[in-house]
């Protein structure tokens, strides 16, 4: 998501780094480029100003001047400042389970509130809560129906009432939750403009009736400079407790994350990274700051990998690789597991160095993986174990059986061979993620 910003900062710093010692003028020109990059990334211009000022003061300080590697020092300062800007020292209170906790979801039109409600419900259900969803968007056509469909898909009840009085719906929902012994009530509300006085009053009244444990503001990661205006108004009216940042699976540079965080002073509680209801993640300021600075998001990747790969299985695989016993079956297995980790391009983005031009040109087509799957499944067990025996006539048969072409079969075999070589290097500790793996 922050690729382009990273690219720009990288190019600025490579200029700084190559010179060794920096003059005040060097630092100023570097900072100007950082300023432009941040503005292009949609960070609010006021926040950029403050940010640049504090980086400048620190950069002109002794620490940088006396350092042999001033460029690196500035990278470090920018990193620290970014992390600081996104870190919140206010501890988030966990929602109590021993009574009915209440969660109010608010935001502009189209920011993704209803989907976020579904994701939150699933998240808390997995964590041992018994949630219900409440449809308090009485304006947008079919909004209630949308929440009902989402609720049904994750087996969570949705409370609705045929009225346009949202406070009445809220009261009814709370009664229902008490009667059914539900310990978490998630209220979905209509999208509203922060300048729409009537609608803002409505949500204020709603908050008074509910007295929610948390009020979460849903912010679209693609938002531009206006992000601060709306977030500020919502925060002033409702005293938000947190922020959900949505649509982070796009390629928006996500400056809105910095803006909304800074202007409200409230933490980003969750980020939403896909259209599936399970695509909700905790926000890690340090990880995202590293990502901004081109250091990749290895921690998230490792976490995801751990969730999919069993440990002893990984060990077995390691041994196979070392003994060169890695088969096409194993390959298919790995491919499927990697798919379970999430969209392939998302995973690639998390790898260090993935911001280079090289990686950018690699487009991962999930359909391609289906083709690979088809080709391997069209092979006999023996062929999968010993790809060497696959001769011309076997290749023809496999191409026909998988409904692909001879070229594709050849390509896959070649790729597999390359991959085996690369994995061998991997297992020896060379972390050299290159183009070989996904040349398609």
């Amino acid at each position, binding site marked *: 998501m922050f690729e382009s910003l990273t690219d720009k900062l990288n190019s600025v710093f490579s200029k700084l780094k190559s010179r060794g010692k920096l003059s005040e003028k060097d630092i100023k020109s570097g900072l100007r480029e950082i300023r*432009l990059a941040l*503005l*292009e*990334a*949609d960070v609010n*211009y*006021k926040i950029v100003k403050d940010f640049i000022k504090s980086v400048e003061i620190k950069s002109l300080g002794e620490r940088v001047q006396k350092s042999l590697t001033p460029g690196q020092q500035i990278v470090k300062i920018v990193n620290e400042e970014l992390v600081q800007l996104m870190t919140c020292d206010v501890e988030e209170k966990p929602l109590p389970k021993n009574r009915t906790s209440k969660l109010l979801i608010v935001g*502009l*039109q*189209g*920011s*993704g509130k*209803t989907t976020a409600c579904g994701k939150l419900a699933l998240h808390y259900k997995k964590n041992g809560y018994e949630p219900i969803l409440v449809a308090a968007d009485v*304006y*947008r*056509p*079919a*909004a209630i*129906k*949308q*929440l*009902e*469909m*989402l609720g049904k*898909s994750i087996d969570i009840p949705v409370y609705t009432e045929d009225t346009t009085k949202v406070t009445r719906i809220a009261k009814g929902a709370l009664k229902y939750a008490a009667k059914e012994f539900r310990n978490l009530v998630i209220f979905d509300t209509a999208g509203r*403009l*922060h*300048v729409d006085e009537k609608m803002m009053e409505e949500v204020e009244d709603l908050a008074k009736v509910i007295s929610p444990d948390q009020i979460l503001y849903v912010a*679209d990661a*693609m*938002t*531009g*400079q*206006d*992000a601060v*205006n*709306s977030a500020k108004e919502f925060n002033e009216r409702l005293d938000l407790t947190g922020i959900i940042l949505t*649509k982070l*699976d*796009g*390629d*928006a*540079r996500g*400056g*809105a994350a910095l803006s909304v965080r800074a202007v409200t002073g409230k933490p980003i509680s969750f980020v939403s990274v896909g*259209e599936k209801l399970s695509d909700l993640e905790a926000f890690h300021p340090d990880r995202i700051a590293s990502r901004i600075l081109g250091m990749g998001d290895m921690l998230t990747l490792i976490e995801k990998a751990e969730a999919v790969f069993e440990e002893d299985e990984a060990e077995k695989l390691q041994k196979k690789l070392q003994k060169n016993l890695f088969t096409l079956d194993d390959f298919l297995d790995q491919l499927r597991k990697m798919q379970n980790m999430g*969209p392939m*391009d998302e995973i690639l983005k998390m790898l260090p160095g993935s911001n280079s031009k090289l990686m950018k040109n690699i*487009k*991962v*087509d*999930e*359909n391609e993986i289906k083709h690979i799957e088809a080709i391997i499944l069209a092979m006999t067990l023996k062929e999968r174990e010993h790809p060497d025996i696959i001769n011309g006539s076997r290749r023809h048969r496999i191409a026909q059986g998988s409904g692909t072409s001879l070229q594709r079969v050849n390509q896959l075999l070649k790729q597999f061979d390359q991959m085996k070589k690369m994995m061998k290097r991997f297992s020896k500790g060379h972390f050299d993620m290159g183009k070989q793996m996904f040349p398609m």
Partner: protein
Amino acid sequence: MSIVSSLKKKLAKTHNSFIKRLAEIVQLSGRVDEELIEDIEDILIQADLGVSITGKITSRLEEQIRLQKLSKTEQVYKALENIIITILHDEYKDVDAIDFNPEEKPYVLLFIGVNGVGKTTTIAKCAQRFKNNGKKVLLVAGDTFRAAAIEQLEIWAKRIGVTIIGQEYGSDPSSVIFNAMQSAKAQSYDVVLIDTAGRLHTKINLMRELEKIKRTIQKHISDAPHQVLLVVDATTGQNGVQQAKKFLESIPIDGIILTKLDGTAKGGVALGIKDSLQIPIKAIGVGEQIDDLKDFDATEFVKAIFE
């Protein structure tokens, strides 16, 4: 109410705060210096115009200040207004608005965009305008993915009094569209408005789906869709340019409908899209009512902001 005055009313907030801020800045510093230019830069950036267009505008402004020895608030402001009007006027002199009274039939419009920009609402507004011109309108529920998207369009169809064609969720949008195109021809509809699922431009599969949708439409009418309209949320930042670029790689785009201009966002990114990709704004959404869709007019638009 004429379009101009209604637009002006809608944009009054934007306008006032802009002028006030500019006046403050110039009065505050009292003279035209580097700091002033940087402050003007900030105002333009704040409107989401982006670094590159902002740079173009301020460098022209600096030149005029120098050449014409401008030193007063009003002079600087007037010069700034003129620069922006000139740029927009040049860019928009050959752009036509959406034809709500087309001769061709069936006239096919395809609406695309990322999630949550207001595609379905925009389609409803367009349908109303076609209907006002006595056209027989068919809505196509091509968003078979998002929960309740079909119902949302159905409710609009009922309110406006037009027909809608759809299938169940999870079905191939191309198959819905194929059937719809068949009925459109058989039952001689004048206008076909096709809704599509919101899709992030970074998802290759979903972009490919758009290519397929286009091919499906062309199986029935070879020169359709007659208008492919990218719906862009005015609150979108610089990523809007990237969105348009990626969509453009899959399907030719005739214009942009800029929505949610009734908030405080200025939608400046649409000017960036025009500048870098030559896709013009064709209409703007200025409210949640069915008639809150206006033709885009560059001069009026700038005037409403700067007058």
